[in-house]
């Protein structure tokens, strides 16, 4: 066993884990106060659902022995059967398969969480949980097999997807598009102001994503080596360049360097360098970043022109950024990897994932909608999903009024001689529910 590689992959797994709460804050800050917790939870719950599914059958479907045709793994490793602490990848110089499985688990966790931003503020939480359960099982696990398992058909086609441009970002972007077409627009889309409630949270989330992305990208080398170093450096370079690209575009088009633009540009750069990072040099990374930053900045406006409500621009950032990175690697790859042939392979990879993911995601969203109802009620959507599904509110900023004690709450600290307040008949505090 290679101790250095093992340590690096385990740390990378922890870094990638941090991306999901980071994403939750990135999205959470962008929604209105009334559904801020729901947005955080839609991302965060993936850490629970997908983790359990991964152990039960996800790892086996993605990285188990191929059932034939490079389409799916078998059920040989259900419950991580047959994988022991001493089981190594690639002979005695490898890393424990458990470390690899943990690292890949984090990818499976964040991918459905990425989609949540497109459906902000309008879906039932239980329906969302059902949707991502089905989605990772029927979309993510197979596609991960196609792209990363040595028997997978896109792997054998020599499509370069170093850390998940197709399997993660294009996949999630297209899945989000399919789901939002089923779910529909938020009430008041293009009419009501839907300003982000906390840009500092967005910035915090983007920072956590950027930090965690070093594990996402460099860790995908699965070894503490020069490839990991190339990827880490290119991750930083492309992300910085993309932030500048987005800011420059905004300054020209809208007259200001916005905070949300800086955060979004960084994420667009992270997405775009993900598939290509190890195959390009630092100048290629700058170019990929600049292109991703400016093009994604332009692309987020498409939803207003085309009329689909991608609330937090999952398509504009992840799908467009993922496609840019996946295709540009065909152009910019060094060491004789690039060229027209590679560009064709990259396009084949990107478009096959798009077609499969769109079709299956759309069917799953329809199924969820038919069986349990995907959409929140109009009343819940207008009042905010936090109270409807989580029995909580994100902030208690109220200076006036207060909270009435509920069943199970500690009794107020009252001395026996204090007179009880006289509320009079019909004016008793409701002991079931507090009207905020």
């Amino acid at each position, binding site marked *: 066993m290679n101790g250095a590689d093992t340590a690096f992959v385990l740390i990378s797994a922890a870094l990638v884990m941090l991306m999901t709460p980071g994403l939750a804050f990135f999205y959470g800050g962008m929604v209105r106060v009334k559904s801020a917790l729901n947005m955080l939870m839609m991302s965060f719950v993936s850490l629970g659902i997908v983790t359990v599914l991964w152990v039960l059958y996800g790892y086996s479907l993605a990285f188990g022995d191929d059932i034939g045709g490079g389409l799916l793994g078998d059920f040989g490793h259900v419950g991580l059967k047959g994988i022991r602490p001493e089981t190594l990848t690639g002979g005695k110089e490898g890393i424990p398969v458990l470390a690899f499985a943990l690292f890949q688990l984090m990818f499976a966790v964040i991918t459905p969480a990425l989609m949540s931003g497109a459906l902000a503020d309008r879906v039932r939480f239980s329906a969302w949980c059902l949707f991502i359960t089905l989605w990772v099982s029927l979309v993510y696990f197979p596609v991960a097999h196609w792209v990363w398992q040595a028997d997978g058909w896109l792997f054998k086609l020599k499509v370069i997807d170093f850390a998940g441009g197709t399997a993660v970002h294009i996949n999630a972007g297209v899945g989000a598009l399919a789901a939002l077409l089923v779910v529909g627009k938020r009430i008041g889309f293009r009419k009501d102001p839907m300003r982000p409630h906390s840009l500092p949270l967005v910035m915090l989330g983007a920072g956590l994503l950027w930090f965690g992305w070093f594990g996402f990208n460099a860790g995908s080398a699965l070894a503490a080596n020069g490839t990991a170093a190339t990827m880490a450096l290119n991750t930083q370079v492309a992300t910085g360049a993309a932030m500048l690209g987005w800011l420059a575009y905004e300054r020209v088009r*809208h*007259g200001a360097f916005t905070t949300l633009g800086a955060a979004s540009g960084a994420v667009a750069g992270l997405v775009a360098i993900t598939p290509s990072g190890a195959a390009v040099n630092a100048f290629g990374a700058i170019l990929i970043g600049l292109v991703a930053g400016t093009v994604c900045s332009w692309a*987020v406006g498409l939803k207003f022109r085309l009329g689909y409500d991608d609330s937090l621009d999952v398509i504009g950032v992840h799908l467009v950024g993922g496609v840019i990175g996946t295709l540009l690697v065909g152009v910019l790859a060094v060491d004789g990897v690039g060229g027209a042939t590679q560009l064709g392979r990259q396009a084949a990879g990107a478009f096959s994932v798009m077609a499969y993911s769109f079709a299956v995601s759309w069917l799953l969203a329809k199924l969820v909608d038919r069986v349990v109802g995907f959409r929140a009620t109009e009343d819940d959507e207008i009042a905010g999903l936090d109270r409807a599904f989580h029995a909580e509110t994100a902030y208690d900023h109220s200076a006036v009024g207060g909270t009435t004690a509920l069943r199970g709450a500690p009794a107020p600290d009252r001395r026996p001689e204090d007179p009880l307040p006289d509320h009079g008949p019909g004016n008793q505090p409701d002991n079931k529910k507090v009207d905020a």
Partner: protein
Amino acid sequence: MKLVTAVVKPHRVDEIKDALQRFGIQGLTISDVQGHGRQRGHTEVYRGAEYRIDTLPKSRIEVLVEDQDAADVVDVIVRTARTGKIGDGKVWVVPVETVVRVRTGERGPDAL
């Protein structure tokens, strides 16, 4: 008695408060409010989507005074609130029927 209400720029509030205390005012109420006069609002941009914000944050100062002090209090507020730029605010005076001090039950000018 009169109620003097002033809507002013938030960053002038501390100086107005100090000036009123030097003038001899006992109590006042300050609240954060939103509104606009001729100044109108501003534009914010989020990922290229522009939002017109019509109201601006302002501070409202309310002071209860005896009739003969009203004009002077207005004068103190106007002098301290003025920056000379658009959006300095407004001050108005309305008659007050009665005032009661909650703790003692005193009424009228004694309650001020």
